[in-house]
């Protein structure tokens, strides 16, 4: 599965990459904000996206909406934190396939990705 990691925190990108790279997931690109996410989605066409919500320039939810317009098959997993319930609901409404709540560990992330196959 080809994956794009979207997060403005480089730590989170490293963390997610470390967690999944040894499995059969291939991280094809990373993006630091919503705008980059849309841009890179068009370029790399990943199968799955892990999408942070709070980001500069364009929020994860806005990026999700745009990306879902561009592709109906791409799977998007929202990466959220406690206290963002309302935002996740909104994301799910707009087509987010699943979500994961920080802090999480490898097993949880993999389970979510597994379920999207």
């Amino acid at each position, binding site marked *: 599965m080809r994956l794009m990691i979207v997060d*403005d925190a480089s*730590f989170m990108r490293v963390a997610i990459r470390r967690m999944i790279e040894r499995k059969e997931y291939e991280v094809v690109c990373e993006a630091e904000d919503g705008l*980059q996410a849309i841009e890179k989605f068009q370029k790399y066409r990943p199968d799955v996206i892990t999408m942070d919500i709070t980001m500069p320039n364009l*929020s994860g939810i806005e990026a999700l909406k745009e990306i879902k317009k561009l592709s109906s098959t791409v799977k998007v997993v929202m990466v959220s934190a406690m206290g963002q319930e309302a935002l996740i609901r909104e994301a799910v409404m707009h087509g987010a396939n699943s979500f994961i709540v920080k802090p999480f560990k490898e097993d949880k992330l993999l389970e979510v990705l597994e379920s999207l196959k």
Partner: protein
Amino acid sequence: MNNSYIDEPMLEAYVYETSQIIETLEQLMIQSEKIGTFSVDAINEIFRFMHTIKGSSAMMMFNEISTLAHKIEDIFYVIRENQGVRYDFSTLVDCILESVDYYKIELIKIRNGETPDGDTASLTDKVNDYLEILKEDNGLKKTKKETETKTEKDQKYYIRPSKKEDSAKYYKAKITFKKDCEMENIRAYTVIHNIVELVEEVIYKPSDIIDNDQSIDEIRANGFLLAIRSTSSEEEIRKYLEKTVFLESLDFEEAEPDWFKEFEVIYQDQEIHEDIKIPETSKKYIENQKVKKEKEDSKQEVTTTTTQSIISVNVDKLDMLMDMVGELVIAEAMVSQNPEVVRLEIESFDKASRQLHKISSELQDMVMAIRMVALSTTFMKMHRIVRDMTRKLSKDVVLEVYGEETEVDKNIIEKIADPLMHIIRNAIDHGIEDEKERIAKGKSKQGSIILEAKNSGSDVLIIIKDDGKGLDKQKIYEKAYNLGLIYQSIEDMNDKDIYRLILHPGFSMKEQVTEFSGRGVGMDVVAKNIESIGGSVIVDSVISKGTTIILKIPLTLAIIEGMNIKVGESRFTIPIASVKESFRPSNKEIIRDPDDREMIMVRGLCYPIVKLYEHYGLQTEVKNYESGILIMVEEDDRSCCLLADELLGQQQVVVKSLPNYIKRYKQVKGLGGCTLLGDGSISLILDVGEFELSNVHEK
């Protein structure tokens, strides 16, 4: 904390990013304080910073750090979401700066592989109180009850994508989620949201999953119950439900229509929701984002491209790259200067090797350039120092910064922050007078400190200039004389030599210890730190006009100009900065003291001699003075003469550290590292400061 974990890229990324955020946050505070308020952009940025720290720290399980960040995030959430909200700006800045300090300390612990165990209780309380007051003052204390009772009416949820009623069957399902999957209500909502395509109608319990977070508890206790009416096959629906993320168990079976009716009756309300209500706050948030996006569209273009063109690289990798380029330069010399090839005098070879030489030296310059970092971050830190100092001492001082784009090697930057801090503290504490005194002297009320950096050949000059009371020559002289540091009369000394005395260990102009610049650390430590990186300190002053301190530092530490010498089979390299002169002594100049220590008289001064072969127990033919050579070395005004077999010449060398295995064994006295010579052999770099030097001038 387990040490093996420290090397993990995750930890590295965490420390790196969090430190950067903290630094930016601190600058943001100082800047905001200058304009007396937070701009909209600043508020958004701080919110995002805290959000990031919260998330990352939680991932790393640094819970205290995460919790504190969460609280501050909450404060800025309130400020962001409620335009025109009134808040106590200066208390908030203090709170955040205090948190910044806390984070800095914890990050140092984390970097050193320790557990971040700082107590946040009082800080968290402070932040909490602030949040409470903020909400109260602005009437934002929402009673949670209100929202709950409101949502309780929304009991039911229908979906009717089509009206094909006939073939529809009824099913009941019970979903339980895995422990710790978090936000079960929203997971349940996801199930409902996506089942739409499969079913005619679905009713679920608990029904208030949308707005009531307490439904989480119910789902955890009783599971999530669904009553489904659908024309899809049982298998299809089962498959769909089985794919639920974090599914612990699924009970799914066909049900009687009667049962469905019953289930329906429990939730009588007939209201049909076409869509799900989005809570007000998040709607507003989205709109804000939209507005912001439109507003800043052009600006974004720029920021995106700049962030993409910069990558962060581990310093170790750069060190490695530089090592390899150093190797390349040596290998290149080995090839192009190979005597057998050179003897052949092939024109095309000479041309090619000149080209190779040009490329490899350009490559070396480029690698050096990559390691260069602008002084701006270090300079920016000084704003915070000035802020804290001026507040505590109630002085009005403005810091002006110039040339912060000047670059020096990464290793050096780390070594100059502390000395700089100390000089600036000194300037504010002892240099700049209080307001009354300044006015009496006819100076402007506000003191000024100018911090400037500029390039000067292979050095960088950092100039710290204040307009305070200046240094008192007479006082310094008297004190130094009384301390026995000097014997000359004041007339025999020039101004700079007198000012230099303040750098002398044990000399402290101000007797009373103040909280800031006292602490027993004087200018001598500054001088020592700067000298440890091969730099020097120059002091100049005009009484009642101010003091100027100039730090002269080399651009890089990684390459030094060295004098190669030979002792038996061993080669050593002495940093050229430490070498005063070299000469062949005659035996009659050698003096022996009663302990049989040898010394030599040079121009009336007596220098101790260190015979390197003896010092390091090496085999050599050259044991008497007349066949060897003496190299006079000096550090911190202390000198000695080293006896070697012969000089091999002067060259630039790339400094490498000794293998860890050896360093673990023993800190060999006088060895500062090693380097590779042109023929691939290893030369040991001498650290002159560790030899038994004597203060020749005092004698």
